[in-house]
């Protein structure tokens, strides 16, 4: 008679706390919570804008609240973390070959940063002008 009795280990709920790599991954994924919050606040602002100047100014006023500034700082930190880690992973999803050689990872990553800076400057110009 077989004495086989394979033992299956349960994945503990805190699996992502036990390995720094997993923790960083969960932070990257978790950034979405704060980015969602930020987007909702922004969408709320657009709604208030459609309701007239008084409503929009009240929304702007609410943004001056220390809690709001705190929340936005965290969202910014998470957005930057997500951006940086995502850009560093970008070469894995790019399959560009030039003259029989795969495009260097550095070029792909710096291309992303160049695009990021370019679009940021463009948005800044649109806002200022």
């Amino acid at each position, binding site marked *: 008679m077989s004495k086989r*009795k*394979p033992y299956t280990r349960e*994945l503990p709920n805190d699996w*992502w706390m036990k390995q720094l*790599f997993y923790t960083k991954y969960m932070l990257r994924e978790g950034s979405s919570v704060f980015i969602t919050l930020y987007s909702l606040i922004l969408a709320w602002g657009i709604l208030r804008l459609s309701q007239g100047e008084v409503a929009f100014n009240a929304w702007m006023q609410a943004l001056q609240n220390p809690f709001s500034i705190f929340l936005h700082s965290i969202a910014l930190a998470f957005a930057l973390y997500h951006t940086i880690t995502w850009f560093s992973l970008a070469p*894995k*999803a790019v399959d560009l070959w030039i003259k*029989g050689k795969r495009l260097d990872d550095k070029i792909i990553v710096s291309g992303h940063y160049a695009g990021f800076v370019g679009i940021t400057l463009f948005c800044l110009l649109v806002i200022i002008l």
Partner: protein
Amino acid sequence: MSQKIIEIDILRYRPELDDEPFTQVFEIPYNADMSILEALQYIKDHLDSTISFRWSCRMAICGSCGLMVNGVPKLGCKAFLRDYHPKKITLEPLANFPIERDLVVVMDDFIKKLEEIKPYIIPVKNEEGKTKCLSDGAYQQTPEQMEKYKQFSMCINCGLCYAACPQYGLDTKFTGPAALALIARYNRDSRDAGSAERMKIVSQEEGVWGCTFVGYCSVVCPKGVDPAAAIQLLKVESSKDYLIGMFKPE
């Protein structure tokens, strides 16, 4: 000079005796040249002959001796005591697989997945449904064409990437890193015409879309394969198929 000692904790499980795994501590003479696999062999030869572990080639070719070293998937033959001494080492069977006995895991699911993806070249067929005849000569390939899939062909099926994949740990229905990388290996081969068959596996829920790009599979691979990249490239292919399918249903 007294002999240096290193402490090794091993997670043991003897199905005929134990209801669940337990940790057994061993102390062995430390030697800077010694691999984890050699340490296990020392334990089996001198301290406890009942301990079970898989091994074969001793040189990172066969992919048999995968295990968790301090929680990180490694090949026993490619990890050395010197990188841990004087701290102790904890050895456990590969994570995300059921334990057969001690450090031996049940890999049936992994092997089944490797088989499912048709890991062989499916040649082009002519109008009569026949493949090229041997007398017509070999299938030729340029170095450039080989470069497209070469790194994905270095896989030794050790299963470390499955032990590193939390998505596989959470749900073993996920096709997983090595099998998906192997799909990329064959789909990217200029001699192969089986992409359409394999894309069915790629595009299903348990295929590439089960991957959330944790990326640890590529970190732990002992052969420098990048399964995370293979999966992202297949996601691109799967999306293309989906888009084309919307306009041109088969």
